[in-house]
């Protein structure tokens, strides 16, 4: 996959995941009316369970952005003529 195509796939797929996650957060944190008798502690725990996957998703997207083959090309300033192109290792970010 070409670097520009991989960037497009990343943007579209990440947008889909982020929109889905934001809708989950919206409904979970603000949208749903808590059931009668729900304690504050239970609501806090509920919010925690909704937030943790969102944070993990955010971290994963950040890691993916760093691993994109196109990222360096986008972020690197124009190099002087004749200077060799920097190469990236094959993706596979180790934890």
């Amino acid at each position: 996959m070409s670097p520009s195509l991989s960037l497009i796939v990343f943007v579209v797929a990440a947008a889909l995941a982020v929109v889905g996650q934001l809708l989950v957060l919206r409904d979970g944190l603000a949208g749903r009316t808590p059931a009668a008798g729900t304690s504050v502690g239970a609501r806090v725990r509920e919010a925690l369970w909704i937030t943790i996957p969102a944070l993990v998703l955010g971290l994963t997207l950040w890691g993916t952005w760093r691993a994109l083959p196109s990222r360096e090309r986008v972020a690197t300033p124009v190099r002087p003529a004749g200077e060799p192109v920097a190469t990236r290792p094959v993706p596979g970010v180790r934890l």
Partner: protein
Amino acid sequence: MNPSTISSAPSESRTALQDFVSLTKPRIISLLLVTTVAPMFVAGDPTWQQVLLVTLGGYLMAGGANAVNMYVDRDIDDSMARTRTRPIPSGRMGARAVLAFGVAIATAATWLLGRFINPLTAALALGGFYFYILVYTRWLKRTTPQNIVIGGAAGAFPPLVGWAAVTGQLDLTAVYLFLIIFFWTPPHFWALALLKQVDYGRAGVPMAPLVWGERETMNQMLWYTFILLGLTLLPASFGAFGLVYFVSALVLGLILLYGVLRIRRETVWAKPAWWVYKYSLLYLALLFVAMVADRALT
């Protein structure tokens, strides 16, 4: 010798064997094994001995977790039609025997994976076991409608096990395999929960349709399907998979999305809900097969 003794002995032993096998929930494990073994071929080039040992270890660990789960849930299994015929509520097996069996085979799995594969693989498999028993069954299942969201992480350990068995480490692709199963679980399980909500209500399990209502559960299924579709496409962006996987993930995901939309759209949603439940099983298996096919073809 009494002829009736001769004829009944094999039948009784077969029943006991069937009960032991049923404690491990073999049908559910078959999908877990697909999501364990497929990542091994994505991660590298495993030997047949590695595949055999990981399959056996994975079966024993998941089977042990399922048996211990039946022990922990023995007080509510009798109140649900779906679980009433299990060995403990039906009185065919004692609770302690089931617990001992579950712990024994999980211990055997830990030894097998640690001794013949590597410590990380054994630790991950054992982590999945404890997460399922302690976090899902003991803690979340009866306390929050988020039970299967967070608890779904237990079912997401198998690809990490398969990956670690071949590479001895975890990387970004392995994280994606974990997250794909994690975010697949809500639309899959809530489709079943919509259909079995009376059963869950009788057992006092706060599944989403009972707490949030059917409409909100259907909305949540759709939001999680959006996340799932995005997540399944993302590995192609950083070169983990190629075109074969990308097209497969897109087509399979769009079919799932269509199914979930049908549940929300139709007034009589039982049929589409059942369809989504069954298709989501096929979806996950085919998605992992597509990963292997992609690696083999590109």
